[in-house]
């Protein structure tokens, strides 16, 4: 199959190459990286019939503008509520489209969401590090951050007419408080700090990147024992600095650190948390570790079912035009 090539007309900060990540290297100071919103990323690949974990591009609020220089390829765009401009056509994220030589694709921040995903019906050619193309943003290792002016080459570029159109969005993501399991260092906080975290509202600040999200809200005072031995950190750890300000560590977190962790966000809630923007108000609720296992298994069951549903081709364009109304927002020449 042929190649497709794009020039990057514009890439905002933190627009990076991501695959499913590189777990297994935390002992060497390397967090797993991978998508900030794993559900949206998985959906983009599923909607194209790609194998899970195929390399895609994570798009920040800064946005991305591409110009197709060579060939043609089908793409999927998911995540948040971004604006997608393909030539004169304007849609939201959660769409599959085909772009050809000479056409322009712009993906910009829309009404909601912090991260969108662009997956390709083909193989994005980028750098590999420790067996993964995921970008570790602070070191730049892996596929790396996209730069204006660079060229992207996708080999084995495919056209998937049977997959074009809107992608059904997941409807099983809870919208209640962010769930945490308290600890592991909740005992290092002054009386009432854990209750404060679980009862008060916190706001996302603009100190938010792939490493973590700093929050604004009632301070969580330490009981004075600030210097604990450096301990392992996970994605979702809520660490509290000496001034009582909490930060939730995310995909490119440091692997060890000496700040006490008051609680840990359960795994799939870090994905919906990642879509919040600066100024968003959020609350936390505590669940037991046993409950967290039940919740994650229920969620993963629904996720697997959802991904398998959207991975089924919906038939050729002709078949679909005969079988259903024109999908809203799309105009076919």
């Amino acid at each position, binding site marked *: 199959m042929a190649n497709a090539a794009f020039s990057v007309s514009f890439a905002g900060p933190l627009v990076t190459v991501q695959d499913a990540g590189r777990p297994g290297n935390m002992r060497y*100071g390397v967090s797993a990286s991978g998508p900030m919103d794993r559900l949206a990323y998985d959906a983009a690949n599923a909607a194209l019939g790609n194998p899970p974990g195929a390399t895609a591009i994570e798009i920040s609020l800064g946005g991305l503008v591409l110009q197709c220089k060579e060939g043609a390829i089908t793409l999927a765009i998911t995540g948040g509520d971004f604006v997608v401009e393909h030539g004169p056509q304007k849609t939201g994220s959660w769409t599959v489209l085909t772009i050809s030589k000479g056409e322009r694709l712009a993906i910009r921040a829309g009404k909601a969401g912090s991260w969108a995903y662009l997956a390709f019906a083909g193989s994005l050619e980028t750098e590999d590090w420790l067996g993964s193309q995921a970008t570790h943003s602070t070191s730049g290792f892996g596929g790396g951050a996209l730069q204006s002016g660079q060229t992207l080459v996708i080999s084995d570029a495919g056209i998937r007419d049977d997959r074009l159109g809107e992608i059904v969005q997941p409807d099983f993501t809870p919208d209640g408080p962010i769930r945490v*399991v308290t600890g592991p260092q909740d005992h290092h906080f002054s009386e009432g700090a854990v209750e404060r975290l679980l009862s008060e509202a916190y706001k996302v600040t603009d100190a938010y990147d792939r490493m973590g999200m700093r929050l604004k809200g009632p301070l969580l005072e330490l009981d004075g024992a600030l210097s604990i031995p450096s301990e*392992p950190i996970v994605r979702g750890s809520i660490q509290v600095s000496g001034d009582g300000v909490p930060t939730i560590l995310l995909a490119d977190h440091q*692997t*060890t650190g000496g700040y006490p962790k008051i609680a840990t*966000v359960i795994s799939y809630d870090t994905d919906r948390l990642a879509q919040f923007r600066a100024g968003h108000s959020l609350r936390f609720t505590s669940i037991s570790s046993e409950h967290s296992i039940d919740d994650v298994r229920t969620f993963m069951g629904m996720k697997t079912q959802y991904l398998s549903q959207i991975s089924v081709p919906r038939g050729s364009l002709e078949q679909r035009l005969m079988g259903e109304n024109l999908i809203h927002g799309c105009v076919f020449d």
Partner: protein
Amino acid sequence: MEPRFKAIADHALLVKFADDASVEAHTCVIALDRAIASDPPVGMIETVPALVNLLVTFDPVLTDHLAVEGHVRKCLKGLKVEEIAGVRRHIQVCYEASFAPDLEAVASATGLSTDAVINAHLAGDYHVLMYGFSPGYAYLSGVTEEIQVPRKPAPIRDVPAGSVIIAGPQCLITTLTMPTGWSIIGRSPNAIFTGDATHPFLFDVGDNVTFERVDLATFERLSKDIDHG
């Protein structure tokens, strides 16, 4: 030592041997890490050794905290703490002034000559405690008391990769151009990123490290060897 267990969210278990850092606690961490590596529980993703505790992460669809804890308890029963011996790694350091902008400051803070600081650094017996901060940043214990200096009040930006830096009892060889508040006393031509897929980082936690002094010509020759892969 009898560890305590703490569930971390839905996907990890923290096994903690002590509240405060000690050689004994760290030895237990390394022994358990090795025991689990040779007999991993179902669904385990990875282990992360630190100063007083070991993190065990897992796939919550395949297992849970209790099952992993049960497996860890089984590993603890046969734990042979006294048999822990790390590999000894030899690291070359060039203390040339241009690579060691803080050598003079460490000398004046400790009342030693720069040569005495270098000799004290070479005399230390170093031990890889854990990785952290950034990929490949291995924290070594063993800086001798006479050259222990506190962190600087503010970090210095753009410190080159390969810098040998010290703060308190710890020493580190940087792998990236990054800011640091530690004192920069030399530079190593040795690659911490080995380029070997089966052993991508030079040190394992628990290894022992000896520093060896090289002159500028040797540094440059060895650096070139790295560049040429």
